[in-house]
């Protein structure tokens, strides 16, 4: 079983992080791979993820599996290897169900997302701005709260107190979702392709009312030129080609372990 995980995980990794090699294959063979498409009738995948998350809250294995499938449909790296990801999906479903059985006890946390994303950046050798920190993970979770609130632990007003941080512990599925969502942002979104020092500098170094204008102006430009997205793409391509097969074999399992997702 472990061997199966390793080989399948390696292939997934090629798409996930590595994506660029796969990316390039699809790019260079686009004549056969390109398809004409009709209008997308599901414009916001987060809506569907939240619907499935709500159904899975009190549901059993089937509802949880549907939620996992929806998450995989919504993240591009998983789409590319949908045929190969059953073991990873099984592991996530199992971990989530066990999490429910144990009344919410989990070894998954914001810190583990930080470690997993940074581990990936280190292994692949992507630029410093693809690393993350606890505050960035919290910002992402805060922004996701309105959209995928049902993926988070059920919140109750009696459980909230002033000064309380967002619960740093997460379910296995939320942890996975936050991690892959953050990886997507690091690959594509200039607003997350920043070191913490850069983020603070673009906000003027101190908290002020209206202090986001400089940041927003800069981001408008970065969305247009996509320079860092290209840098990340090239770094991933270079990193993948320089990794040993053994290192690559070990990485998917290492990442899921780092996220605290049980086997």
């Amino acid at each position: 079983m472990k061997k199966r995980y390793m080989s399948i995980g390696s292939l997934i990794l090629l798409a996930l992080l590595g994506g660029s090699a796969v990316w390039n294959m699809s790019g260079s063979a686009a004549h056969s791979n390109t398809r004409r498409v009709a209008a997308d009738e599901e414009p916001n995948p987060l809506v569907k993820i939240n619907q499935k998350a709500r159904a899975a809250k009190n549901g059993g294995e089937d509802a949880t599996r549907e939620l996992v499938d929806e998450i995989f449909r919504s993240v591009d790296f998983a789409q590319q290897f949908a045929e190969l990801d059953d073991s990873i999906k099984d592991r996530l479903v199992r971990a989530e169900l066990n999490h429910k059985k144990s009344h919410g006890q989990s070894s998954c946390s914001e810190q583990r997302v930080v470690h997993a994303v940074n581990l990936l950046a280190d292994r692949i050798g992507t630029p410093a701005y693809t690393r993350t920190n606890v505050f960035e993970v919290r910002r992402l979770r805060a922004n996701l709260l309105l959209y995928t609130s049902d993926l988070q632990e059920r919140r109750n007003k009696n459980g909230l107190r002033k000064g309380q941080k967002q619960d740093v512990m997460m379910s296995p599925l939320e942890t996975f979702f936050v991690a892959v969502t953050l990886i997507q942002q690091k690959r594509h979104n200039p607003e997350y392709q920043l070191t913490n020092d850069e983020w603070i500098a673009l906000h003027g170094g101190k908290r002020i009312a209206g202090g986001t204008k400089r940041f927003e102006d800069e981001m408008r430009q970065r969305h247009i030129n996509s320079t860092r997205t290209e840098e990340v793409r090239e770094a991933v391509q270079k990193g993948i080609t320089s990794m040993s097969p053994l290192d690559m074999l070990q990485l998917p399992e290492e990442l899921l372990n780092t996220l605290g997702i049980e086997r």
Partner: protein
Amino acid sequence: MKNIKLVLFSMVFVCCAFFASCSGGGSHLQSGFRVFGEKYVQVFGGPPMFVSPTSIQGTRLIDYSGATGTVTSFGPLLCGGPCPIEGGRTPARWNIVAGTPVVECVGYLTPNERDVTLNSLQVSKCLTFGIVFPFSAAPNLINLQAPPATFEMTGENLTTTYGMPYIEYRDPYTGNLIGATSATYVSPKGSVLQAAAPNLSSAYDGVYNVLISNIRADGSLEPVGMSTIECTGRPYPYEPPPDPGPCGCPPDLPCLPCENPIQ
């Protein structure tokens, strides 16, 4: 068995490396350019978030001096990565849009009309319909030395069926809850609420997210909208993010090994 898988994996790896290094990643076409569509969702109180690749289409508007290529329109196309537009006319001005306007996308983060040069990568970023339910808060500029006694918020979908809506004030940088309170009044149409101002003694200058939730039958919170308030009168620098701790040892939590935590 392991050896066979290792050999297979190595073959995949070598193939990917070959494509990545020898094809130039599909980044150099004989003629034409590459295009990529990205779909973002507007996140209220935070940056737009990348959700998935999307289809892309384009039409040439005018040629520039020395333009070559026979292709003057394309799409909608959806590729695993950037789509090559072999023979796409360059240098020329094109109208390139991601997603399906109006049906799928309500706005763009990048200009649709752009000058396209040979072998360039043209990324179009569209904003999908969101599930953002913006509320307006009054007042929305708060002097922390003399905070108002009450807030009024205007939006929609408020209900008092299972209790008065709940309002959380969160620091988007740290994710911390800086104050929370229940509404004291909701208009019959569910579009206006009033609430006592929370204790903002731990707030500093800057922008804060206001999350408005209805109460569900089970007492849990269901977010229905978000707003922001700007605070002034208590300057504070950005604090550095907390160290996530050594791998698997988050601050204030039991140590959890990152690698092979679950046997």
